[in-house]
């Protein structure tokens, strides 16, 4: 019991066991969506309840938790989830990617490569990658069961025919382990290559849709593409205004009322670390 009178991790042990069973199944079938019984959370759906349920079920006293929203540790959503877990578990929290054993994320993968033993928990609004193309859920399940993914390629074909390139910049669909089509959650397509053969375990929780899926360490994650239109991770062609990185994913920030803009790293820890190294070097 924590100081507030909640069970460790907020959820009761039976619920956590149920979710862990779903996670084990998801790990066993990489990319396959496993249903689970979502519980009421002290946050509305859309604020990361799926990710919170997953984190709550796997977190232990020895863990160190990092929470990011769009790459940042200091936004409202990230801060409130981090505080929530600090309260209901008492575990250590961090903003350092390298120090965390569990990283819960909304819409980004940290720039610092993750290592074996770490767990990345994604908050997922819509787990079904086919939902815009095929509105019938029963049919999408059949398509997954039969690996019948021609329709997804039709969507990519249509994009190239219309725009000259695949017009998906977030949630770019991937094929996991050569078998299941999976939504990577709304991370930028730029982050997709980081998922491929990642040493860390990747878990995905969708609270409203009540689905969990997973990518075990070192699993192949391939972004769908055509031989003559290969997948290209795109970032703004600029350097970070704060750390001068030309490798990291950048956010465009409006800085004044005169339309002034600048590009900065979306990963605040990465950016901050680089800045302090530069300062130390000077």
């Amino acid at each position, binding site marked *: 019991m924590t100081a507030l009178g909640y069970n460790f991790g907020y959820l009761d042990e039976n619920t956590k066991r149920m979710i862990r069973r779903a996670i084990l199944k998801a790990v066993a079938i990489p990319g396959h969506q496993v249903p689970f019984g979502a519980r009421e959370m002290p946050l509305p759906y859309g604020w990361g309840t799926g990710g919170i349920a997953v984190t709550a079920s796997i977190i232990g006293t020895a863990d160190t938790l990092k929470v990011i929203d769009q790459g940042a540790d200091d936004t409202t959503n990230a801060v409130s989830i981090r505080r929530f877990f600090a309260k209901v578990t008492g575990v250590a929290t961090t903003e350092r990617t390298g120090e965390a054993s569990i990283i819960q994320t909304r819409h980004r993968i940290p720039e610092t490569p993750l290592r074996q033993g770490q767990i990345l928990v994604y908050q997922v609004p819509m787990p079904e990658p086919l939902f815009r193309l095929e509105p019938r859920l029963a049919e999408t399940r*059949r398509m997954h*069961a*039969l690996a*019948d993914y*021609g*329709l997804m*390629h*039709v969507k990519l*074909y*249509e994009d*190239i*025919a*219309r725009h000259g390139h695949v017009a998906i910049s977030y949630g770019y669909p991937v094929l996991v382990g050569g078998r299941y089509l999976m939504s990577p959650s709304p991370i930028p397509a730029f982050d997709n290559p980081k998922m491929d053969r990642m040493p860390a375990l990747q878990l995905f929780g969708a609270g409203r849709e009540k689905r969990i899926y997973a990518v075990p360490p070192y699993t192949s994650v391939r972004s769908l*593409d*055509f*031989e*003559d*239109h290969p997948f290209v991770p795109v970032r703004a062609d600029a350097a970070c205004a704060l750390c001068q990185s030309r490798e990291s994913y950048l956010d465009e920030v409006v800085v004044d009322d005169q339309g002034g803009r600048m590009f900065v790293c979306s990963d605040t820890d990465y950016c901050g670390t680089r800045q302090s190294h530069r300062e130390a070097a000077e």
Partner: protein
Amino acid sequence: MSAPLLQASGLSLRFGAIAALDDVALEIHPGEVVAIVGESGSGKTTLLRVLSGLMRPEAGTVRYRDPAGAVHSVHDMGEAAMRRLHRSDWGFVHQNPRDGLRMRVSAGGNIGERLMAVGARHYGGIRAEATAWLQRVEIDPERIDGMPDKFSGGMQQRLQIARTLVTHPRLVFMDEPTGGLDVSVQAKLLDMIRGLVADLGLAVLIVTHDIAAARLLAHRLLVMRHGRVVEQGLTDRVLDDPQHEYTQLLVASVLAA
């Protein structure tokens, strides 16, 4: 002589008191065009759906011989195998092109879908193939990115045929392919089907109530009534020397078939 591609026997299916299929047997060989004729309600569309695995009979079997020579029971093969068959080795042309096309996907995407479903991953190659097929079905290749709902009924049907034939199926089921079209458009479409079938050496099972279409396309004819095949044989013989009372009525009621 070659072994049959599809072989059905003892097919029966009732809808309540009505026998939609009553002990129907049929076989079709590679390259053969077989028409199933009869008035509406005779069971011909039901037969097509049962033969193509879309519907299960109460009794009887349908066997399909794959390109490797292995014979499969169509209604025991499982959904995955059935889908694979329907998107590669088989084709189905619906009467209403809306049932066979994706109306919100471009003409090129409609043709390309079947190629992609069987593993094509080269955009330029898919596009070239789609262009060639549009030309083949006499649709201006400039309309490759056009949406089918902007096409005329005849064009939609030709697009459906291109989409179906692009993977070079061995067996194509056609359900009244000229059904909803104007007479002049029908004639053009029939010629096109006739030419494609001959060029590609397709086996075709076509359901039609149009005797003239059957004469033009089919090598062999099955006449259905009340769920039974009342007469079958060489197309010109069935039409010129009909034996069964119902066939005589059917032929007599058609002008200059």
